[in-house]
């Protein structure tokens, strides 16, 4: 049965505490100063005092039709049917960086060969969540099948609509 796991970041709950970024490097034993397979990014807009700050934790999106897989000249990149994780075969990768051109999100990193998030397949095998999701102190970062994730998102929006405190106005779409 084809299953697609994925991440979901609730922008409103992320406070850029960098825990996911450091947990990912620590769990995979990556040296500081080299690659970052998950990065926390801030978008600031407006000027003092009307400032808007949005925080976003970003790693590989494990696309349904990965642009990196499509352009890889040596077939080093493949998408696993059983969980939808996009993985890189290090022995085939020649470090041509063409996948970087293709990726709309600038995810591929290079330490000789292409490095990127593999959804912590080792932890998944032990029934654990990826290291970044497990450590997120504000539960902004979620993991699961796309059905599970959409359920979380819809529940959140519905709750806000019902609104336990203020009576909310129904928005006409």
């Amino acid at each position, binding site marked *: 049965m084809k299953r697609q796991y994925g991440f979901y970041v609730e922008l409103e709950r992320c406070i850029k505490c960098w825990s996911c970024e450091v947990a990912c490097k620590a769990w995979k034993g990556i040296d500081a100063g080299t690659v970052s397979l998950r990065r926390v990014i801030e978008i600031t807009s407006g000027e003092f005092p009307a400032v808007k700050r949005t925080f976003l934790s970003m790693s590989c999106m494990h696309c349904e*039709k*990965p*642009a990196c*897989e*499509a*352009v890889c*000249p040596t077939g080093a990149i493949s998408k696993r049917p059983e969980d939808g994780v996009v993985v890189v075969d290090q022995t085939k990768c020649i470090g041509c960086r063409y996948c970087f*051109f*293709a990726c709309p999100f600038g995810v591929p990193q290079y330490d000789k060969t292409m490095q990127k998030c593999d959804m912590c397949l080792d932890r998944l095998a032990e029934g654990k969540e990826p290291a970044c999701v497990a450590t997120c102190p504000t539960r902004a970062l979620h993991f699961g099948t796309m059905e599970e994730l959409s359920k979380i998102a819809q529940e959140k929006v519905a709750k806000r609509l019902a609104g336990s405190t203020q009576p909310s106005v129904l928005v006409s779409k």
Partner: protein
Amino acid sequence: MSEETGFINRKFSRRTFLKATGALGAAVALSGAHDTLLQKNVAKAAAAAPAEEKLIPTFCAMCGPSAGCGILAKVVDGKFVGIEPMPECPLNNGKNCPKAHAAPQWVYSPERLKYPMKRVGKKGEGKFQRITWDEAIKLIADKLLELKAKYGPESLGTVSPARRSYSEYIYRFLMTHGSPNYGHSGICAVQRMFVLSYTVGAVPSADWANADLILLWGKQPIYSGSSKGGVQSFLAAKERGAKIIAIKPTVESDVAKSDIWVPLRPGTDAALGLAMINVIINEKLYDAKFVEEWCYGFDQLKAHIQQYPPEWAEPITGVPAEQIKTVARMYATTPKAAIDVSNGPEHARAANDAIRCIGILMAITGHLDKKGCNVWPSASTMPSPRGVHLFDRYTQEWVDKLLGYELPPQFQPFIEGTSCSLYRLWNSVLGGEKYPVRAIIAPGSQSVASTRGTKRILQALEKLEFFVIVDVTRTSDMPWADVVIPVCTMYETDHPFEVSGNWIMARNRVIEPLGDYKSDYEFWLDLGTACGYGADWWNGDIKAHMDWRLEPLGMTYEELRTKYPRGRKYDPKPPEYEQYAKRFAAKSTRIDKGPYLPQGKVALYNTLFEAAGFTPMPVWRELPEGPTATPELLEKYPLLMSDYHTSRTYNAAWLRHVPYLREIEPYPYLQIHPDTAKARGINDGDWVKVESPHGWIKMKAQYYPGIRPDVVFALHGWWQGCKELGFEDFPLGDGGANTNNMYTTDPEKMYDPIITAMTSQTLVQVTKI
């Protein structure tokens, strides 16, 4: 989007890269006369003797009307070899387009004219004899004075394309000589400036930095100078999230990045404009308060426009009525919406009507002189250098003496002084006008390649008594010249200065002139003095002239050069908005200096045009030949053809001889939709015959998915070969590649009745050769 993953599909990487290389490989006939460095090995270059390298701040000169981009010209051992960025110039912020980088090949091209010549062979034979600069000047001056005595000063005419930095010197010479006959090609800029001035009182520009919606109407920012502000402001607006609607017949890169493409047929902009006004008025989307307070003739317009609903415009423009409504509604209801109109609509019989519609659209929606809409230029604290145009000497008699009007006499002179259509100037030589001109000077203009009716121009060239060419490289009508005057390229002269917004910089000489010639400006100073008008021409003293021009800025030309090597920046004044009273009271350039807008309001209903015998409100005028204009011709000539004015690598009729540019666009291409071509058995790259009711040319078919299946497009101005790549010249008339052979020369159909803009649409058949 196609089902392939995103934009790069697996097929792309290896095969298409090869395909593109292959197409060029065969064509390269590597002729011997090749002086580029063979070995490209870096180590080898470093090992050579350390070259003495200089970087000279100056201006690129490779393209048209507006000022050149700032560059650092790299000179190695006295040879101009390349350019580096000069970020100080606000026009291009250190960026440069492909033409700028190909400048050395243009400067050192074998096609350069190196010394003055006088004709010794028969007219059109192309035999010349070298003479000195002074001999040539004297020869021209004597002839002009002789013709002036015999036939009056008005026997002299000049031909010029769009506005150049030396255009004002031509007006001045004509004024000092006594002739009103300045021939303008009528295919760029002046036409829309005239119509907008008489509709909204000025030429308000689109406020790209603040608009949320921009209509890119008939504009080619990538073709007409990709390094200038156009591209940078387009991309900045996109990244800011602004919506862009592209109204153009073909898909260039800017259309591909726009949100909506309005694929109208060339020459039908007026129909689209009228239909949009119809929608906005009938659906009450106009700004009633602004219309009531600042527009004249709304009721008349409202009645007049009922005949032009979107359903009427659909068969003419080819744009679905629904899309016309959507675009009209979006423009009217978006508070910050602007229209950036350029050359596209100026090539049609209804050119004035199209531009009037655009002015009216801006006015009735209130999108005028507001942040994010079309705004007036903000003033600068920089005192403006003196102009050369003797504007105050124009009189009514002067206007009446004009041979043939480009703009109606009641509105002469306009910003270019008294101007007559270039075609009428040549027509007078064949006796077709009030009186014939006897002498024509062509500074940087190739009439045979750039105006309609090539055959008639060639006949006139045969008959013209005295023809002078002033240019940097060989031109298409040089064989018929009596005197050829070479002039410096802008890399060989240290004047004039360039102004870009609030910044001014002196031009610096990169290399010494390669032959016996001076600059354009020195030519006019010398000729003016030789003709006895020295008092008006600083007696030929270029230095005194330049200092005179800079006097308002309180410094001499040398001080500008030495004190401000990278240009001097003045602070802009903060922009002012909604200054309607002042804006609509603007004085015109007419003899009586009356306001453009007699009512002090936007002319929805134009009383001045009405008094001059023209339609007070914009109307629809059919194409000379077109699917709805002449359906009877469709059977023999099924496709609608038009042409571009300029491209990424060429300007009008120039630069085909520059190898690095010719490599990119090696052939005169006919853009044709793949299905249309396949239906005729034409493959991508085949040579085809393109025939209209007026002439025929040979072009290479280029499969172009981003075009209407019933339309084909080409670039105008093809005549020149390129020795380094082994390309020969093309014939100028039928059988060549000059699109000007294809269009009508029937005076009733070839012009816009008010602004003499020349139409560039016809019906053609395309067959494989």
